[in-house]
């Protein structure tokens, strides 16, 4: 009743060819990627990793909008030269709230995974406006428009969207209480979606990241984001050998 299933069957039947080709090329993913979702040791158990505040999250959106990722990675690999230059190697846990993550592999500029706290706000502002004014050999373009006002009207929607991907921004009192338990009250307030816009403006005013407190600019958001990169985990409290055991 059935013809013998041979190589010729596949070659002469477009349906079989498509299905089997797709299977063949997905083997790598099935073997190398899919199991990571099931493993216990994929995410390191470290304290401190939290979602971004509304202002930081908007800064991250601008980071993506401006295509910073085309020249900057956010992934310090576990090599000595990288550790000496950029700091502790990146952990999977550190980007668990990043959607999409910004790891990258193209480094025209330096890695930014731990740029937080390395330079002053003032330096970042000057550098983003006119990179060559502080790093003469830089090939980074100027971003003068970042001093323009930040559109914060849709920040709550953006957080709601991220919430559907699993970022624990809270909508209800129950979720809020859970965040208080997990991240502490101060942070939990930041992650409450109904207060997003108020929190955003408050953080920008208090931080005054761009040195101009008359309005909230895109610069405020971007610098707030850059200054938090890689600072969430306190590595003085992590034993290096514990991280070894997660791989």
């Amino acid at each position, binding site marked *: 009743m059935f013809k013998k299933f041979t190589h*010729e069957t596949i070659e002469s039947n477009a349906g079989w060819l498509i299905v089997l080709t797709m299977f063949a090329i997905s083997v790598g993913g099935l*073997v190398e990627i899919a*199991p*990571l979702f*099931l*493993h*216990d*040791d994929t995410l390191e158990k470290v304290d401190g990793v939290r979602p971004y505040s509304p202002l930081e999250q908007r800064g991250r959106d601008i980071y993506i909008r401006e295509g910073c990722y085309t020249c900057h990675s956010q992934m310090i*690999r*576990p*090599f*000595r030269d990288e*550790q*000496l*230059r950029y*700091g502790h*190697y990146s952990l999977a846990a550190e980007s668990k709230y990043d959607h999409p993550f910004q790891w990258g592999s193209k480094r025209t500029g330096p890695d930014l995974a731990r740029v937080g*706290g*390395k*330079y*002053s*706000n*003032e*330096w970042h502002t*000057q*550098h983003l406006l006119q990179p060559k*004014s*502080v*790093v*003469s050999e830089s090939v980074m373009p100027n971003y003068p428009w970042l001093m323009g006002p930040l559109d914060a009207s849709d920040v709550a929607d953006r957080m709601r969207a991220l919430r559907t991907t699993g970022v624990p921004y809270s909508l209800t009192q129950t979720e809020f209480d859970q965040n208080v338990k997990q991240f502490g009250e101060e942070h939990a307030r930041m992650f409450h979606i109904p207060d997003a816009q108020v929190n955003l403006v408050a953080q920008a005013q208090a931080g005054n990241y761009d*040195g101009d407190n008359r309005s909230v600019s895109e610069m405020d958001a971007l610098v707030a984001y850059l200054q938090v990169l890689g*600072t969430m985990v*306190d*590595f*003085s409290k992590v*034993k*290096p*050998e514990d*991280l*070894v*055991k*997660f*791989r």
Partner: protein
Amino acid sequence: MAENTVQTTGHTWDETLQEYNNPLPNWWIYGLYVTILFAIVYWIIYPSWPVGKSHLRGISTVTYLNAEGQSETHGWNTRAKLLKEMQDANALQKPYFDKIAAMPAAQVVKDPELNSFVLSAGKALFSENCAACHQAGGQGKIGFYPNLADDDWKYGGSVGEIEATLVGGRRGYMPAFGEVLEKSQIEAIAHYVLGLSGHAVDKAKATEGNTLFHSNTGACYYCHGEDAKGRKAFGAPNLTDKIWQWANVPVATDLNGKVTAVQKVVMGGLNKGVMPAWGGENARLNPGQIKLLSIYVHELGGGK
């Protein structure tokens, strides 16, 4: 043409179109078998296949020191390898760092071996951590970041003072006088300040500025000192020399431009000049590196 003994693949397309089934060259096919064999050996030695909730760890191991200083062995992975490499390299550098930590800076620079260690390690640390602001040679940038290669220091230029600056960071601040003083008063102060460093200024205005500088209205003397030579405790710079940090006086070609540059700073004040902290909690640099870097900066030319 000689008769071809090679078989066809047996397929026929478009009535007559056939394809010879030439065997692969031996070097190629045995090369393939070798790579397969290599892969199997590799799976055995290094971490490889996912199994259940974990993965095969491989038989290769790395031995490193744990936080308690005891030797510990774990299956090979890049993190274990890195930990070992860092420890080995640190062990090689340790005698130098230990000597530098135990010695006063003046003695370190007299020891040729230690001095060359300071220069090469210091250069690498400086390039990565300091040069973004203070520039490659430490020359700084007027209007932004102070020069570290001259002998003028806001917070002190001894190795100890430089070290304190590195560990704790600094935050420069000068209040804005735009709403406290009249415009003419600020102009007078600018004339006085420029006169301090030998510029030819309007004598009458400078005299008025002098009075304001030392009065409780202007109160400039409080931070910059009675003699206007600055006070380290506030990071207030010496105004009597020709070194300018915030007001870009050197580029102004005439007195008017110079006065405007100084006026701008007095009117708007300064809420910048932030140097991040490199020591303390969550430090980027360890105490050994900070001392080495302090000596390096001190040796850039202007150390006191």
